[in-house]
């Protein structure tokens, strides 16, 4: 499957029966029981991500993005509805799915190459072979020469690249990323975006990126799903018809600005709802 064969549906609801979908969410809901009542984190979400597609999920903080990420990654095994990867229902971490976490997640006691070769070590690959393979992915994320450094000797952006390389080394069919660059400054984020685009060109892996950054989403994606704020529903799915291969230079183009504005219109309603609800909660808590 090639990236160019992307179908362009303009409906907000993607057909879950789409046979081309590698990752399919069919009417997924996730509720958390809490002492204050049930929180509906993800509410009846259906979508289908095709092979090789770069799909982003965008929404305000607290709308259920990480919950979605954890369900697809198999770290939350109890959910309503159905999530399948290549037709198999997700009940736990799936070998075809690789996760990059929002938090700093490198192993501080391992060097860069020991971190990146970690999934291969778990598979039982001999050291020489897994180091050779790890070097390939270290090169891919642009960390040549840092193989024997410890994470504490690297910048935040470099550490996130180590995490990315480590996940890529396990050669997942689907790469899941939960706000991997959220903690980084804007310039670093744009440049890392370029790296991600290059990697996407090379590996053609299916990617689901979770973000709250519109620029990042438009820069990288084939499609973007905007989520509503609490309960987390699908608000809209937008096709990004920007030419590939892309670089961060596209950020200055008119078409780019048009997409950003369009998504911001959708997102603004949700973000401001989130803001007022948060403030409302804070006020009620304060007056109690």
């Amino acid at each position: 499957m090639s990236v160019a064969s992307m179908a362009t549906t303009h409906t907000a609801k993607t057909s879950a029966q789409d046979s081309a979908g590698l990752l399919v969410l069919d009417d997924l809901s996730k509720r958390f029981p809490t002492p204050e009542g049930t929180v509906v984190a993800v509410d009846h979400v259906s979508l289908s991500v095709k092979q090789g597609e770069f799909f982003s999920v965008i929404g305000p903080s607290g709308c259920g993005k990480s919950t979605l990420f954890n369900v697809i990654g198999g770290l939350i095994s109890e959910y309503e509805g159905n999530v399948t990867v290549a037709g198999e229902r997700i009940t736990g971490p799936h070998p075809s799915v690789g996760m990059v976490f929002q938090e700093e997640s490198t192993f501080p006691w391992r060097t860069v190459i020991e971190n990146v070769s970690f999934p291969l070590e778990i598979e039982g690959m001999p050291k020489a072979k897994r180091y050779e393979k790890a070097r390939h992915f270290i090169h891919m994320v642009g960390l040549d020469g840092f193989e024997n450094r410890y994470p504490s000797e690297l910048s935040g952006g470099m550490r996130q690249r180590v995490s990315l390389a480590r996940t890529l080394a396990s050669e997942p069919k689907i790469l899941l990323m939960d706000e991997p660059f959220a903690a980084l400054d804007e310039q670093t984020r744009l440049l890392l975006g370029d790296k991600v685009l290059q990697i996407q060109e090379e590996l053609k892996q299916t990617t689901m990126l979770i973000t709250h950054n519109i620029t990042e989403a438009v820069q990288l994606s084939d499609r973007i799903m905007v989520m509503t704020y609490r309960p987390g529903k699908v608000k809209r799915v937008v096709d990004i018809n920007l030419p590939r291969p892309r670089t961060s230079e596209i950020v200055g183009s008119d078409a780019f600005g048009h997409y950003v504005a369009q998504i911001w219109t959708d997102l603004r309603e949700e973000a401001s709802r989130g803001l007022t609800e948060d403030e409302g909660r804070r006020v009620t808590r304060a007056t109690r």
Partner: protein
Amino acid sequence: MAETGRLRQAAITSPLLSPVTLVRLAIIAGVLVLWETIAASGWLYRDVVPSLLAIGRAIIALLSSPEYYWHLGVTAGEIGAALTIGGLSGLLVGLVLGGSRFMGKAFEPYLYYLGPTPKIIFFPIMIMWFGVGPASKVALGTMSCFFPIALSVAAGMRQIDPVLIRVGRSFRLKQWQMAWKIYLPAMRHPIINGVRLGLGVALIGTLLAETKLSNRGIGFLIIQAYSLFDMPRMYAMLIVLFILSIGANALIGRLGGLDSIKRL
């Protein structure tokens, strides 16, 4: 500006020029002079403060006596056994208490209260159970080091960054791989700290037990020298023991310290 900073830095780190080092050396010299003065003055009862020369000779005599090494071996063996038994059981108990909220809540208060109790009060019981030989010393040493190790392992387990565990789960690690490749390395600092604390108290527990009731070991030799009023020999043994325990502590600290530099 940067240049003067570097120069000042050099002055502080240089061992010869540093005022701190000079003061430290002066303190040692002062103590030695004071000691020798008191020893020579004859103010105190005979040999309570022996001359440095006598102590030096006693150290040489001690270090060239095979009998001393035999006793040192006994004590080292007792401490080693205590640290192994107490350390492994402490690690195990710490993992259980740290891994389960329920177990932690149910049992940890006991550890907190028993931990700081001087274990020597249990020595008579240990003698009844294990006899006057090395076994009762090992038992006391084990009791001493079990608590700090169990508590620091339990605390260390709770401090593990949860995202590292999620990384392990996402790579589908098996239980033993989780323990071996994530939990233990993530806890290496609290574990080494626990072992350091454990070594200290195991040393105290074992030696104290030897001085109370025994027929071998360093504690026994020290108390024997004391009852024979062989003060130079007693001081010699204390000094050697002091240096050995500093060395052991530094060794363990180095194991933990080396990679702590490279950690966050």
